[in-house]
């Protein structure tokens, strides 16, 4: 019981940045996060917007969920940038990608750049949830906490 309460408060406190230029995908990711119990969700519909947010020390984020392919600054650029910002070192980063052959190379690049996890479109809610729980160190898989 204590565990559940603690998790719920963790979930409610966690602040997540969603970066996705496709409005449909952005809205579904946000809806998933809400269904998982997250309360503090910020959605950026362009990487430029995301760069502005990440450079603002006043904006604290525990996790970034970012699309890969975006015009101008892409997901990998965003990841590299956030790894350079000293106050973003603890922030987790999950890349959302499409699994076409050349993207496997990109995934390898993202690993080098220090991505915490990646998720391939289209995905199920359960998988998204597991990845988030995993990177936030809340344990993954079979627990029932805050299940969608």
């Amino acid at each position, binding site marked *: 019981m204590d565990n559940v309460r603690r998790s719920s408060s963790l979930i409610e406190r966690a602040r997540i940045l969603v970066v996705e*230029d*496709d409005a*449909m*995908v952005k*809205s*579904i*990711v946000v*809806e*998933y996060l809400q*269904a998982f119990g997250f309360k503090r969700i910020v959605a950026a519909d362009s990487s430029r917007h995301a760069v502005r947010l990440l450079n603002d020390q006043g904006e604290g984020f525990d996790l970034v969920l970012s699309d890969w*392919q*975006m*015009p*101008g600054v*892409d997901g990998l650029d965003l990841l590299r940038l956030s790894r350079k910002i000293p106050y973003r070192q603890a922030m987790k980063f999950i890349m959302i990608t*499409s699994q*076409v052959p050349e993207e496997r190379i990109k995934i390898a690049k993202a690993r080098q750049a220090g991505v915490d996890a990646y998720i391939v*479109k*289209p*995905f*199920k*809610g359960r998988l998204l949830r597991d990845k988030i729980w995993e990177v936030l160190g809340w344990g993954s898989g079979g627990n029932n906490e805050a299940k*969608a």
Partner: protein
Amino acid sequence: MSTMPQKKIDTEGSLSGRMQAPADIDGRLSALPEWNHRVLVVEDEHGIAEAYRDILSPRSQGVIPIRRSSRSAPTEEPTKAPERFELVVVHDAEAAIAEVKRSMSMKKPFTMGFFDVLLGGGMDGIELVKKIHELDPHLYAVFVTAYSDRNVDSIQALLGEEHASRWDYLNKPFTQGEILQKARNGVALWNLTREKQIKDEHMANLQRQLLEHERLATMATVARGIGHEFRNILTSIMGKAELSETLNTMDALREQMKNILQASHRAADVLQRFHFLHNPSEQKIQKKWMFIDQPIEEALTLLSHQIKTNNVRVCWIRRKKSLVFGNETGLMQVFVNLTLNAMQAMGSSGQIDISIVEIADRIEVRFRDYGPGADKKIIDRLCEPFFTTKGEQGTGLGLAIAKEIIEVEHEGKLTIQNHEVKGLEILMVFPLTTTPTGGDKKGG
């Protein structure tokens, strides 16, 4: 008789027919079929027929027994015949026709034949050859005649001008050297012609394959973009459906269904775009009246994903609604190629300016990028097939194909120049045609 292996020869209409010559990995021909040495002799005098055998197919290989004709110089040396002719000797026209028919059905045609002009029986040598050429147009005929029963003019008159390259003439009595050399010439002519056909066909095949490869490469690029869009749409549809479990009012559920339907419509739209590239070979020559900006717009829509992710702005400078009578798929491929080229030249971001204007009797379509342009030294070569500046990434066919589609299929002109300020400009000029329903030469 020679036992030289014979390659299968398709004899219907062409020496090589559908035969595919083997090619190595670079597309070069690595092997051509072995030479065909089949020779037909039609001679009703058995003694002369024997002479042919002695000259062309001697029993002791290599050296031909000396057989002097009255015309042969007394010092003529036995002639060496390193090749083995596969000789078939017959004594009348009917047997000759039967042999030719048999050779065709066995796909072992004769390369050439020696025809006695005066044959016993109904048909003479010339009529016979005329008949044989109906069965096997590639057989090279040498008329062998005594006295002057026929001169070359009468043979020419009988066979017709179009047969002139397929026969020769020799007077009796002949020397072994004459026969041997005529046989060599006939065999060589036949085999070299076949080799040339195989090579030409091989080249045409390669060309076709490269064009197909280029088309597939374009399709793959378009398909990648579409795949990406589909993943987004599916993510949305799957998510909405999954999350509908958590909804507990009918209204919320209805709203969610509406969202799912919307996403599905978007998927259908994406597919609709793709259908243009579905089977271009079928639509290849179908032409219709259309506004020239239509295939441009379609190309841009097909590449919308790439345009977006490459941060490219497309500006319509002028957009005259000019009508062309054209092949939509072909023109779209042109603009897909030009857009891809422009994006590759510009890198991560840039702009493409497009303008359509009508000047006097022509339509000018300009397609300009803001990349580095092309080196003056190579700009004229950009439309050459296989010329590429993109290394392994390019086939060197994109612009060549664009030029062909514009110039051959649409009677237009495609030129490439550096823009005076920046970037490369492709200028396409189409003849300005009259109204679609008017009496235009291409209308209909």
